[in-house]
């Protein structure tokens, strides 16, 4: 059954089997993202529960403009970013004032260099990066979100997102060299 059919069915009947179906499809993915961004299992578990509550209480507001997965991942990323903002009392997890004005420079690090990094190394590299960079790399390489979808999710311009991805890739590459080259 497609996501949309399950959603409509849930909205009509509130059936637990529809809840279970959506939960089984997405809970583990949401948890994985929360864990990567928040870096704490207990926090990620609580976040997964709260994000799912948000999703189910706002299910009727889901519009078919985007894929359901994109919609729930947007909720997930925004929840985690807001949480970190509140916790760190930090205005910008995505500090991109300068990025908005920066000229477009071609990407020097290939996608392959990043996505073919050993899983263990990738995990360490992501853990060492700022939360905003982690989130943006997950959106691009794990969720296959387009630049426009990422820009819409984070409420930024597409050029700012391109620049942010470029810088995050550079940071990841640099961290990989620092952490693993001499081993």
């Amino acid at each position, binding site marked *: 059954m497609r996501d949309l059919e399950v959603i409509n069915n849930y909205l009509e009947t509130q059936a637990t089997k529809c809840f*279970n179906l959506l939960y089984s499809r997405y809970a*583990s993915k949401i948890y994985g993202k929360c864990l990567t961004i928040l870096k704490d299992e207990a926090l990620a*578990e609580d976040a997964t529960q709260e994000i799912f509550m948000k999703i189910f209480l706002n299910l009727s507001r889901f519009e078919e403009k985007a894929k359901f997965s994109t919609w729930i991942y947007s909720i997930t990323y925004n929840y985690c970013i807001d949480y970190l903002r509140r916790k760190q009392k930090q205005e910008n997890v995505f500090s991109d004032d300068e990025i908005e004005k920066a000229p477009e420079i071609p990407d020097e690090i290939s996608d392959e260099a990043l*996505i073919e990094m050993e899983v263990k190394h990738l995990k360490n590299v992501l853990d060492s990066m700022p939360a905003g960079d982690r989130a943006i790399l997950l959106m691009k390489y794990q969720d296959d979100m387009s630049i426009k979808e990422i820009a819409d999710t984070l409420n930024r311009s597409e050029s700012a997102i391109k620049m942010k991805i470029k810088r995050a890739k550079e940071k990841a590459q640099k961290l990989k060299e620092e952490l693993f080259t001499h081993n």
Partner: protein
Amino acid sequence: MQINNFKRLQEEEEIVYREQHDEKVRAGLLSSLGMFRFVGQVVDMYLPKLFDLLIMAAGGKTDSSATTRGKSIPPSQAPEGTNGKRRPGESMGDDISSR
């Protein structure tokens, strides 16, 4: 097929979630959603009555006291075989459009 270790990382985290966290989060969610549904039903059931009560306390006339909602039809006026009982949603037989 191109390797994407971001996806592999996700798969590993999914396995950990299913083994260690799935049941706890699912149970917590079902309980919270059940609570929300219960509160919603209570509000649905009693909020209109509360409004009626406030209106009556202010000296007004409420819908429920002004209409014949909920009343049964005397058997003498009921269609044959129904014994005056209405099914849910069935009108009393008056076509208000013809008035």
